[in-house]
């Protein structure tokens, strides 16, 4: 019975595509040279890299000189934010981002605050969206960067990147977006999106871990974070991870090629899953925007039960998901994203993220829908709480206030 394995944690990472792996293997043993070497073996690697850069640029509708390969999404984000901050230091000091960003953005911003920069954290609404007027009003004369993620990793909410980009370019502020979660499903045309910088990584698109990319629009000047041999157009030194880069670009191409059909397929599965789980199980809340959301993201809160316990039971049934519960996090704090949306604490604790992927089938979804009600019921039977959904909702205002105070304290 437990033979079935349903991996629904594709937002954490994906299983590598076999074609991608095949591509990657070549660059370990056949084309293994250092692209910086003068001889033919090195030249082969260099040509491969040039080719990959061209193809990556094509996917993004960018120039090859605008593509910088990095070691991860997190590194790209650090490069974009810190690199730009160091470049404008002494002239400008203000950054705008949102409270629902990935830790890579939030921690980098907090670090820069310690170094004397100012950061405005835009609130997100109940669905996870920022308010564009608020953004406009937040931009100051000394604002040099806006960083807003394309699609949220936890709740899947998709921001209006085009509009944000337009606002930024009108006000002459650089705009960076973290597109790691979006890359398999949304349009990555940087001209359409009006972005100056865009972060991608390999592990979310059935590619390798440990590879990322930063699109850096021509004319955007950043300081490098890693100094050395001057690779990547002097922006990121260190011998290029040729196998990783080749595989990443291949994976990105495949994902973007299939994205429309794949999105359509997953939206249907996603909606079915949300609908049927909510039908079968009482007191379930959907986190994130109902429609402006990633095709593969199902994030639900089950009241009166705690997320880690749900995960353990799911695991025993061969279902692998993740939770925003405090008990599952290293710091024992509930998901900052769910709290940022002004959702009551109670919801965060019982929140489960199922992130579907290209291997997810209709049978997988049916299987989850079948086993989930019993798990929740069992845990509810041993729960001392029986929250009233309506009450919880009305408590929300008080809780928001609490969070506000909590944040003010910080």
């Amino acid at each position, binding site marked *: 019975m437990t033979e079935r394995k349903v991996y629904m944690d594709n937002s954490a990472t994906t299983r590598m595509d076999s074609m991608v792996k095949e591509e990657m293997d070549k660059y370990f043993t056949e084309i293994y040279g250092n692209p910086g070497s003068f001889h033919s073996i090195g030249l082969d690697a260099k040509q491969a890299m040039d080719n990959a850069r061209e193809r990556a640029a094509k996917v993004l509708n960018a120039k090859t000189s605008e593509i910088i390969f990095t070691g991860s999404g997190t590194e790209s984000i650090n490069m974009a934010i810190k690199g730009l901050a160091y470049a404008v230091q002494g002239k400008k000091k203000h950054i705008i981002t949102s409270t629902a960003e990935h830790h890579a953005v939030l921690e980098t911003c907090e670090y820069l605050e310690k170094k004397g920069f100012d950061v405005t954290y835009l609130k997100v609404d109940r669905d996870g969206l920022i308010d564009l007027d608020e953004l406009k009003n937040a931009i100051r004369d000394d604002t040099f960067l806006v960083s807003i993620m394309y699609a949220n990793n936890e709740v899947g909410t998709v921001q209006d990147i085009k509009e944000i980009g337009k606002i930024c370019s009108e006000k002459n502020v650089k705009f960076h977006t973290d597109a790691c979660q979006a890359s398999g499903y949304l349009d990555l045309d940087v001209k359409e999106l009006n972005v100056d910088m865009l972060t991608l990584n390999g592990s979310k698109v059935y590619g390798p871990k440990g590879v990322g990319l930063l699109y850096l629009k021509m004319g955007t000047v950043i300081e490098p974070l890693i100094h050395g041999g001057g690779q990547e157009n002097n922006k990121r030194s260190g011998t290029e991870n040729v196998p990783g880069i080749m595989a990443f670009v291949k994976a990105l191409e495949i994902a973007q090629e299939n994205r429309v059909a794949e999105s359509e397929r997953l939206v249907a599965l996603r909606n079915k899953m949300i609908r049927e789980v909510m039908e079968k199980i009482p007191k379930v809340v959907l986190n994130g925007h109902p429609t402006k959301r990633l095709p593969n993201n199902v994030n639900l809160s089950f009241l009166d039960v705690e997320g*880690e316990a749900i995960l353990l039971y799911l695991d025993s049934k061969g279902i692998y998901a993740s*939770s925003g519960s405090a008990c599952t996090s290293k710091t024992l704090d509930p998901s900052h994203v769910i709290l940022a949306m002004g959702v009551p604490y*109670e919801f965060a604790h019982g929140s489960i993220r199922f992130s579907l992927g290209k291997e997810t089938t209709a049978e997988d979804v049916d299987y989850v829908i079948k086993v989930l009600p019993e798990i929740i019921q069992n845990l509810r039977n041993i729960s*001392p709480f029986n929250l009233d959904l309506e009450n919880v909702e009305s408590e929300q205002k008080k809780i928001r206030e609490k969070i506000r105070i909590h944040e003010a304290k910080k």
Partner: protein
Amino acid sequence: MNELKVIQSEKDKFALAGDGVSHDGKSWFYTDVVKDHFFNPRNIFKTTQEADEYAKEADGIGLVGSPACGDGMKMFIKIDKDTEKLEEVKWQTFGCGTAIASTSAYSVMLAEGNGMTVDEALKVKPKDIADYLGGIPARKFHCSVLADKAFREAVNDYYKKTGQNEKVKTDGKKIIDNVLKITDHDIEHAVLEGAMDFEAVQKKTKVGVHDKECIPMVKNLIKEYKEKYFGED
């Protein structure tokens, strides 16, 4: 110095036993005993209605925590009035795998066989529960404390119901940090969640950030709680 070593090794032992499931899906390493109690919890109710019925006849009930602050635990006890032995210990919890497993184990330790007397049971420390389970992650230690606290509440409830008011033990909160209104309970909680020195506790609670005067007192409390929960006795 010596004392520190003990705590360190105790921590390591818990840490070795695994760190639970992390936010981004890391695997879990609970011991087999933990898993057994988690997947087959003992002394629970089949339905919430059954729990409601049972509440009417229980000799003592204790509830600690709330869903808003994270964890919650309710304990129901039945006691033989003549011998003061525990006849039954039943429970409900809103908590993680460790909370469920440690409460299940605790209920077995207390009421198994002949059952402990209330006095004996009050001597069982959260550390004993952890040992019984073969170790739990340091970060999860506070979950076993929850069971202990709920039990103490239930005993208090029993004392009140049987007119033994002099035996009731309340531990009222004391405000330590006068600016942020941080109490000794908050500090205890932080220690239980794995903050083992002042810096770590401050990071968690912000204690002493504004109210510098309370820092020596906080340091003392941390020492006290470390001894209480992690030290050998």
